């Protein structure tokens, strides 16, 4: 039985991607682009040059974090649309801590500074998401609404910090802060950010959390059947708070790495790629794997391949990146539809 299901899943994914590319090809033909070249650019840019591959990994890392931010609350049937806001908030508070300490005369060595900033990002993102978690656990406020609203709060908070005279870079026209002290930044190895180590740790962490721990079991049980879980003593309100905290903590951690590893300062729009924000890509990626935390890294990587391909299309063929967003949206739509149609339990 299990093998049959697996076979179906593979077929569904294959067909979904295939159909999405068929639609893309048709559009490309209609706009008189060279279809073969479009598809080749889209799919192979990540693997042709080391730069392409490095770019792909750079996108994969934050995407993994925001995908988990959506996936974990989704396991108990809540939509956290606030991965973006939690990432921004985590990154912003990280920058505040990283810039303030030297200003008040505290110069910490790297091996203290980096862990401190990482913990800052985790706590900042976690508590920011906890606002939405608290609102739903206590007052039944739909987190779709609260997390979207909190995204705006996070954007404005970032702008407030990045334009603040204490932190801003006076030579920049945009909201950008001064660079972080060297002790508070991470470097690259073969063009790949060190934060990949932490992304891998996070993947292992989530795997153990869900599969091996009591709280993971409680999350799973609530996802399977809330009524039964509650009858047998699982505290729903508490689990809501924990899932939102973990979700926000991971998104916030992702924000920290964007700030200390990629940009090395706080800049407006640091949590965006190809002109769209990581939060929404996280939602798409999570939907592709049906909220299954184990599939997240693979899906995030494939998503990033498409994003890098999209950038290349825009550069070399002047095809707007939105066309790739279209293909990603189509893949999700096809997968969700096929899954409902062919895998649904009676």
């Amino acid at each position, binding site marked *: 039985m299990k093998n049959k299901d697996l076979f179906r899943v593979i077929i569904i994914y294959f067909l979904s991607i295939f159909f999405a590319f068929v639609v893309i090809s048709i559009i490309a033909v209609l706009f008189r682009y060279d279809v073969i070249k479009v598809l080749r650019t889209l799919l192979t840019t990540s693997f042709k040059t080391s730069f392409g591959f490095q770019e792909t990994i750079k996108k994969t890392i934050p995407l993994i974090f925001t995908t988990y931010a959506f996936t974990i609350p989704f396991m108990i049937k809540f939509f956290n649309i606030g991965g973006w806001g939690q990432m921004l908030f985590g990154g912003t508070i990280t920058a505040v801590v990283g810039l303030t300490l030297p200003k008040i005369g505290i110069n910490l060595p790297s091996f203290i500074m980096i862990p401190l900033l990482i913990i800052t990002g985790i706590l900042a993102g976690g508590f920011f998401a906890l606002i939405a978690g608290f609102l739903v656990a206590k007052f039944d406020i739909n987190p779709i609404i609260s997390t979207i609203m909190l995204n705006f709060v996070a954007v404005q908070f970032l702008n407030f910090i990045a334009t603040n005279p204490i932190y801003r870079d006076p030579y920049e026209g945009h909201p950008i802060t001064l660079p972080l002290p060297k002790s508070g930044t991470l470097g690259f190895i073969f063009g790949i950010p060190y934060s990949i180590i932490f992304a891998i740790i996070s993947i292992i962490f989530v795997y153990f959390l869900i599969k091996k721990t*009591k709280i993971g079991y409680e999350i799973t049980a609530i996802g399977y059947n809330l009524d039964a879980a509650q*009858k047998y*003593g699982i505290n729903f309100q508490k689990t809501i708070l924990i899932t939102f905290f973990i979700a926000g903590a991971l998104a916030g951690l992702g924000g920290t790495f964007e700030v200390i590893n990629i940009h090395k300062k706080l800049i407006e729009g640091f949590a965006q790629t190809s002109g769209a924000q990581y939060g929404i890509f996280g939602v798409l990626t999570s939907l592709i794997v049906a909220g299954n935390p184990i599939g997240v890294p693979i899906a995030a990587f494939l998503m990033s391949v498409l994003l890098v391909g999209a950038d290349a299309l825009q550069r070399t063929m002047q095809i707007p990146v939105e066309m790739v967003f279209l293909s990603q949206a189509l893949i999700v739509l096809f997968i969700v539809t096929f899954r409902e149609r062919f895998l649904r339990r009676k």
Partner: protein
Amino acid sequence: MNNFFVELKNVKKVFGPVVALDNVNFSILKGEIHGLLGENGAGKSTLMNILYGLYTPDKGEIFIEGKKVKINSPYDSIKLGIGMVHQISTLVPQFNAIENIILGTEKDKYRLKIEEEKEKIKKLSRELGLDFPLDIKVKDLSAGVKQKIEIVRALFRGAKLLILDEPTTSLVESEFKDLLKTLKSLVNKGVTIIFITHKMREVLEACDRVTILRRGKVQGILNRDEMTTENIVKMMFIEKDIKVTESALPKVELPESRKSEKPVLILKDVSTESTEQSIGLKNISFEIFGGEIVGVASVSGNGEKDLAEIIINPKKLKNGEIYIGGEKINGLSTLEVFSKGVFYTPEDRIKEGILPEGNLKENILLGHHSEERFLNRKIFIKWNEAKSVTLDTIKKFNVYAPNEETTIRRLSGGNIQKVIMGRAFVNSIKLLITHNPTSGLDVSTVEFIFKKLVETRGSGSAILWIGEDLDELMILSDRIMVLYKGELQGIFKRSEFDKYKIGLLMIGGQK
């Protein structure tokens, strides 16, 4: 030409191993109030759902006003003049009465002719003598008023037969009097009514004739002059043909057992809040000793669910005290209660009892997931331990499943129930609270579960068994207590068991 509005002939309906209706003949005269009585699971709902088009019968015929018909959906039944008023309001809370009544009857595709319809509805409700506010949102109205709206809604659609499914569940006394008046006046206007109920008094006051179902069969049809408390109780609870009862019930002996000296469970003046879903408990006090099975006999909706749940979740206690093994458990969480040696199997095994997409291991662990034996450093689950316990349960309870990784949803109802029971015996327990453990199961599984209960009793544990079948309770209980409207009506010792007396109390007859 006979004078029947509805006739059902030889209707049969089977669900899995359970014969819900067995060659039922049921007929209603035009213009009468016809009571439909029976215990839970007697087949009342199934019969009405067939008439209303929600189920199709496996066998049998339906005649409406002498003509043979097929009813495949509620849409068909509405066209045939059948209207149903459900036990729980099906009105749209955000709409007012008018909007609710015209919903789905709009003839114009684009325009709502509310004003015209309003006049019609006003006229209809005046004729029927049913007055209710037309412009207030239904959610702000009382249960009795909502019911009037539901009745008018059915009649507005041209219903000539009204099915009222336990219409008095959420009504207060004065509203019941009102309803009675309404029904009488409807009948005078030529409407026919089927009145489903559990309550003796309502039958005696409201019905012209009554059909009594028991285990999917018609036990009898009584005319007004034959309707005595005695006749009704006998037909509801005591089968005419004794042999049938015996063959349908498992043969399990209840051996002598030693009762513990001190009670395992004590309830003192326990009350719970009454809500729209449940009637709540009113000042319940009793004790259960180790080594005995105490059956709770009640018609569903009389507080028996609250009784089970208040013990495993005493946070919901309004007042009173609960003791387990001498220790007060007021304010404890479910897991804390479980840690005192209590376990529970819920009423609805699919909705409340299992994690359908989870495997057997995950399902067995539910409720035990905080116990030290399953945890490493209080955080990590010992899946190996869960696995060996699961395999052990599969063996002990004869669960028909390949291994511990099987998704529970794939098992049959009987095997699912065995897993739920098995979960309760992962640890040795002092008190088992079990709610309808045998409903919808085949005789051999019932027998198996009975044997487990007897075994548990023999080992000195106490069992609080809430059952929907009085015959089953009488086979296996040391004592039976009766709940009616959230109040304890009495406790019977085994030597005092009397189907008639117990049945009478269950449906609110005089003590």
